[in-house]
């Protein structure tokens, strides 16, 4: 592996709950290379979202160290290394789609014409070129989520954190967006490292270079499954026998976590 962009060294996260401390993440050691597409999968309570939040400095570890490009996550956040996409699009109602995509650039103080040009470029990339002047509520859920991806990519962050971004969408839209996400990611220059949280097995296998399978109580990394399907992946990839074999492997692995827990 190249020099890792993300390094977890024996990281634990303990929450102080009402019923005593809860270990959300236990002793996780993980290295992720620049440009990798990583899927985090596991049942609820396995700490996959916590892991993502630790990377993005949305939460801090209780033990161990997290290093992002050899910096602290806090420093990386200040350097604007993260683009985040949540399960809900979180677009601001009062801004048009284009203005939503411009928001991070506005905060980062980019000049107006440059912002506008970049936003239009990204909206075209995600297939929303004609909807820049629409307000979020005028768009379907899938279109809103594309706008939110465009917003996350607007300032070309080196790490893209995605927390079940397609979880609220119907299956047909979902498969379509998976394919679009892959081509956007593949063509982005420089290509970001993606951390993609999901609880869909086929989604994880279809998208990722490596699938990190996690188990609950306490949350820990069970196994890392290498996905050696050729890129760029296409619609047909899902019909590949190798794809089925990997889906089965991840599924078996998840079942093992249940019996183990």
């Amino acid at each position: 592996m190249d020099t890792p962009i993300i390094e977890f060294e024996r990281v634990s996260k303990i929450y102080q709950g009402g019923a005593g401390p809860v270990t959300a993440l236990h002793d996780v050691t993980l290295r992720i290379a620049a440009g990798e597409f990583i899927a985090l999968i596991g049942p609820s309570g396995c700490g996959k979202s916590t892991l993502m939040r630790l990377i993005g400095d949305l939460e801090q570890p209780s033990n161990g160290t997290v290093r992002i490009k050899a910096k602290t996550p806090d420093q990386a956040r200040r350097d604007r290394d993260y683009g985040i996409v949540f399960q809900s699009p979180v677009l601001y109602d009062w801004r048009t789609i284009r203005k939503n995509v411009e928001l991070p650039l506005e905060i980062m103080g980019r000049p107006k014409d440059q912002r506008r040009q970049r936003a239009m470029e990204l909206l075209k990339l995600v297939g929303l070129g004609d909807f820049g002047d629409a307000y979020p509520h005028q768009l379907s859920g899938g279109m809103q989520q594309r706008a939110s991806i465009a917003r996350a990519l607007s300032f070309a962050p080196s790490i893209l954190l995605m927390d079940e971004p397609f979880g609220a969408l119907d299956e047909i839209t979902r498969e379509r967006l998976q394919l679009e996400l892959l081509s956007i990611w593949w063509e982005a220059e420089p290509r970001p490292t993606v951390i993609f949280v999901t609880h869909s097995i086929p989604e994880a296998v279809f998208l990722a270079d490596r699938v990190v399978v996690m188990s609950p109580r306490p949350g820990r990394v069970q196994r890392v499954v290498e996905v050696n399907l050729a890129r760029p992946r296409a619609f047909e990839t899902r019909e590949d026998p190798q794809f089925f074999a990997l889906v089965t492997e991840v599924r078996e692995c998840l079942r093992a976590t249940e019996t183990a827990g």
Partner: protein
Amino acid sequence: MQATTVSTPAVRSTDQVAKWFHILWPPVLTFLVAIALWEGAVWLFEIPIYLLPAPSQIMATFLERPWFLLGIGMVTFSNALMGSAIGCSLGVLVAIFCVRWTFVADGLLPLAVAASAVPIIALSPLMGIWLGSVSAASKIGVIAVMTFFPTLVSVYAGLISPRADALLLMRSYAAPQRDVFLKLRMPAALPFLFNALRVCATLSMIGAVVAEFFGGPRNALGVYIKTQAGILRTREAWSAIMVACLYGLIFYLVIVLIERWVMPWKQRHSGQ
């Protein structure tokens, strides 16, 4: 994926006219029917004029001295306007303080919620003692207190309305507090602010008229209604009440128009 149609301006304006006609005709019709029933009942049952004059008589009385009545209405209305301007601005300001320093909110907000539920108008006689019972200041004072609390409670709720994800997004951009406030909290609070302003427009006109019942200059609407009703000149009192309603409605509608202008995204939303 479904395509969303974004209608052209021309199509939208004819749609708007049809929509407004559709919304407006039932209340307009109801209003006219009510007025007709009132008029009919007064003539049919020969109700004495000092008890209840007919709408046509009220209108006639108004038309005898329209400028006088609108003039004294203006005196009262400007108190309402001044009082709610002070009360609402202070409400917004204190709400901002509450978001910035949460200990202020912890101490103040439960009291503010309680205060918006009590009849502040009862303070009127006291305000008269403090600020002079005839002076405009005592009226403006009552109205400022009346409108301050609902504005504070509502705008604070608006400022803290952004969900955790929306705030985390700002955090991920390493946005300074100023941007979190100006680009997220403030616009999110706008619908709440306008709800409060609409309530305050109504409250302040009620407050202005009622406060004058406890004393005020002779050329004020509340004083006029009270004295005319006191000597059973019911038609005169009613025509002044009509003017009070007129100013109240205008105040409310102006707020609604500003709201539509300030929040275009809401307007299109309701246009669906």
